[in-house]
C-alpha cells in the first residue's frame, strides 16, 4: 500500500514543479491575479455593532474661556499665539456624553444625564458665580473668575447618585439647572431676583457658594429658560412661572417691577397647555399644544407689533398669525423665529432676518424659502426640525442633521469660517449629524453624533 501511494504522489509533484516554473516567467495572467486577490487578507475596520459616538463642537469667541479649550487663551507652547476667534467648529473632548448645552453671555454650561456625581460642567466667565464656586488651585480661599476648561459644578443634591440633570439654561449672568426629582437649581447674579430668591442689598456675587433650590411649583418643571435678566419655568401642567427683571414686561406678570419669587403667569395663557417657552433677550414667546403662539416682553423691535403699538407688553398676549400650526418658537435679542408643522421657518422682528439684506425689519412673520435649506426636486423630504436663536443669530437644524446659521457674525460665532454677516441661511460644515445646538452672544455649542 505504501509503495502504491508513493507512485501516485510522484506525478502530482512533477505537475506542481512545472506549474511553479511557468508562473515565474512573464506578466501574471488574469487567473493568477484573481487567485492572488482571493488570497489577500481581509481587514475589518468596523464591526456590525459599531456605534456612533457623541461629540461636542464649539466655535466663536474664545478669550472669555467659553469655548472650553484653554490652549486658545493660554497656549501650552511658547511660540503659539492665543486664538481669539475659532471660526469653524472645533471638537471639545468631554468625559461623558453631553445631553444638554446652553450658552450664556460669555459662558457655557454642559450637562449630562448620568447618575454619576458630576453632572454639570461650566466654562467661561464666572464673575457672578454663574458657574458656581470654582476653587482656585493657587489660593484655596479664592475662586476663579474665568474658567478656561469644562469644570464640574457641585450641585447640593440630596440624592446625587439617583437624580438626573435634564436641562441647563444660561442668561446674562445667571444659570439654571433642571433636575428630574429635585426641582431647579439657580446660581449667579440675583440683583433682579432672577435666581428666584430674595434680593439682598449690596450682595457680592463673585466667589459665592450660594446655589438656590426652587421647588414650589404646581407640578414638576419640565423646561427652564433664561432671558437676559429673568427666568421662565414651564411646568408639566402647561403653566409658566417667571421671576426676575420686569422693566420691559418680560416677566409677564402685569407689572414692570422686579419679582424675586417664581410667580405663575396669567393673561392669554391662563388655562392653556403650553408646550414650549423661549427667550434670550427681553422678549418671550410661548407655544401651546394647539400650535398657537403667545408673546410678551419687549416690543421695541416690532416683535409684538402685530397686536399692539406699545413697546412693552407685560401680560402674555396671543399672536394671531395665520401661518399654520406652530411647533417651536425661538426668541433672539431683536428678532424672533417660529417653526411650523410643515417644517418651514417664519421670522419677524428687526435685524438680519435671513431673507437677504433688504429685509431688515418686519412685524408680520415672513417665511424663509425651503430651497435655502437644501430642499429641491432632487430631495424633497428635507424639513427643518428645530430652530434656535442667539442674541442676533439664528440657527436651524434639518431632519438630515445639517446645521444652517444666519445673522450677525459677531466675533465669528456663526461658524461659517468667514467674518462677514450672513444674510441668508448658510450651511455649517460639521463632521457628523448635528443633534442639538445652543447659541450664545458670540459663541455656539453643538451636540453632534458621529457618522
Amino acid at each position: 500500500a505504501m509503495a502504491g501511494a508513493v507512485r501516485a504522489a510522484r506525478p502530482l509533484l512533477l505537475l506542481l514543479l512545472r506549474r511553479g516554473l511557468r508562473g515565474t516567467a512573464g506578466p501574471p495572467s488574469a487567473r493568477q491575479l484573481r487567485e492572488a486577490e482571493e488570497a489577500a487578507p481581509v481587514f475589518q475596520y468596523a464591526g456590525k455593532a459599531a456605534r456612533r459616538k457623541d461629540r461636542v463642537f464649539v466655535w466663536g469667541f474664545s478669550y472669555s474661556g467659553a469655548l472650553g479649550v484653554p490652549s486658545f487663551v493660554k497656549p501650552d507652547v511658547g511660540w503659539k499665539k492665543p486664538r481669539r476667534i475659532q471660526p469653524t467648529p472645533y471638537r471639545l473632548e468631554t468625559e461623558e456624553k453631553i445631553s444638554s448645552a446652553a450658552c450664556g453671555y460669555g459662558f457655557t454650561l454642559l450637562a449630562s444625564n448620568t447618575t454619576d456625581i458630576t453632572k454639570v460642567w461650566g466654562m467661561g466667565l464666572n464673575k457672578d458665580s454663574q458657574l458656581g464656586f470654582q476653587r482656585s488651585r493657587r489660593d484655596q480661599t479664592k475662586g476663579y473668575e474665568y474658567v478656561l476648561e469644562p469644570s464640574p459644578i457641585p450641585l447640593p443634591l440630596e440624592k446625587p447618585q439617583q437624580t438626573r440633570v435634564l436641562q441647563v439654561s444660561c442668561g446674562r449672568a445667571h444659570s439654571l439647572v433642571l433636575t428630574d426629582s429635585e426641582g431647579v437649581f439657580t446660581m449667579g447674579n440675583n440683583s433682579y431676583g432672577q435666581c428666584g430668591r430674595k434680593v439682598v442689598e449690596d450682595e457680592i456675587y463673585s466667589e459665592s457658594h450660594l446655589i438656590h433650590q426652587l421647588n414650589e411649583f404646581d407640578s414638576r418643571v419640565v423646561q427652564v429658560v433664561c432671558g437676559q435678566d429673568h427666568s421662565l419655568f414651564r411646568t408639566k401642567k402647561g403653566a409658566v412661572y417667571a421671576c426676575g427683571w420686569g422693566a420691559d414686561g418680560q416677566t409677564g406678570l402685569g407689572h414692570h417691577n422686579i419679582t424675586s419669587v417664581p410667580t405663575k403667569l396669567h393673561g392669554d395663557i391662563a388655562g392653556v397647555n403650553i408646550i414650549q417657552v423661549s427667550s434670550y433677550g427681553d422678549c418671550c414667546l410661548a407655544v401651546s399644544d394647539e400650535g398657537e403662539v403667545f408673546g410678551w416682553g419687549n416690543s421695541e423691535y416690532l416683535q409684538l407689533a402685530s397686536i399692539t403699538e406699545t413697546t412693552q407688553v407685560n401680560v402674555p398676549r396671543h399672536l394671531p398669525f395665520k401661518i399654520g400650526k406652530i411647533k417651536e418658537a425661538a426668541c433672539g435679542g431683536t428678532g424672533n423665529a417660529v417653526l411650523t408643522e410643515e417644517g418651514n421657518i417664519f421670522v419677524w422682528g428687526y435685524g438680519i432676518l435671513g431673507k437677504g439684506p433688504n429685509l431688515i425689519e418686519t412685524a408680520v412673520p415672513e417665511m424663509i424659502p425651503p430651497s435655502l435649506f437644501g430642499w429641491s426636486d432632487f430631495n424633497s423630504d428635507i424639513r427643518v426640525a428645530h430652530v434656535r436663536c442667539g442674541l442676533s443669530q439664528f440657527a436651524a437644524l434639518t431632519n438630515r442633521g445639517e446645521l444652517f446659521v444666519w445673522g450677525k457674525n459677531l466675533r465669528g460665532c456663526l461658524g461659517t469660517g468667514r467674518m462677514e454677516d450672513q444674510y441668508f441661511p448658510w450651511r455649517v460644515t460639521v463632521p457628523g449629524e448635528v443633534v442639538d445646538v445652543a447659541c450664545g452672544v458670540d459663541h455656539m455649542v453643538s451636540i453632534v453624533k458621529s457618522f
Partner: protein
Amino acid sequence: LNAAPRRPPRQQVRFLPTPAPDGGGAVELVPTRVPVLADHPLVRGPQYRRLKIGAGHRLDVKSSGVFVLGIGHGNKLLTDLYNCHLTKVYTVSGLFGKATDDFSDTGKLIEKTTFDHITREKLERIVAVIQGTNHKALLMYSNIDMKTQEAYELAVKGLIRPMEKSPPIITAIRCVHFALPEFQLEIQCLHETQQYLRKMVHEMGLELKSSAVCTQVRRTRDGVFTLDDALPRTQWDLRSIQDAIRNCRLKVKTELEKTL
C-alpha cells in the same frame, strides 16, 4: 455625404451672342442665365473633402455614455456651450470591499475590507454630507458677493453657479440602488472628470470604514443632450446623424439664448 445632391451651381447673367431670330448674319446680345463654369462638378470635384469635428466634454477610456461632437460650424457652438457651465449627470456603480490604486476594479488590488456593517441608511447619510459640502462650494466659487439682494434671490431659486473655471463640484447626488456589495449612485456635477468620480466612490468607501471601487461610470446627460438624443453604435450613419443634428438645433439655441 458626397453622394447627396449638391448645391445647385451659381447662375450668372451673361450677354451671349445669339443669332437674331429673323435669320441673317447680324448677331444680337441677349441676356441669358448661364451656369458658371467654375461651379461645375467636374471642375470643382467632391464637395466635402475634410470635415471638422470637435469634441465636447471629455469622456475617458473606461467610461461610457453621451459624448457631444460638433461638426463644421457646430464647433463654434461648442465653446459657447462650454461657457454655459451646464451640469452633467452620471450613473456611477460601485463595489464595496476592495480598494485599488486607480479606484476602478481593473486596477492593482491594495486592500480588502469587510463591508457587512454598511447599510443603506449610512450610505445616504454620507451622500447627504457630500451634497451639503458641495452645495457650499457651489455658492463659494460662484464669486458673487453674498451680501447683495440678488445673491439671495439667486440662492433661493438655486441658480447660483460658478461661471468660470472651478474645481469639480457635485450639485446633486443620490443612491438609486443598494444591494451589498454593489451600489449605484446618480451624480449631477460640474467641471468634473471621470477619475474624480471614481475617487469620490473610493472616499465614500473610506468614510463608511470600509473600501469601495468604481465599476462603471456612464454619462446620462451632458447639458441639454440626453440619452434619447444620443446615437448608439448601430446608428452611426449619415441619415441618423443629420436627423439628430436637426432635432437638437432648437434645444441648443434656446439654451444658449437663455444663458448668454
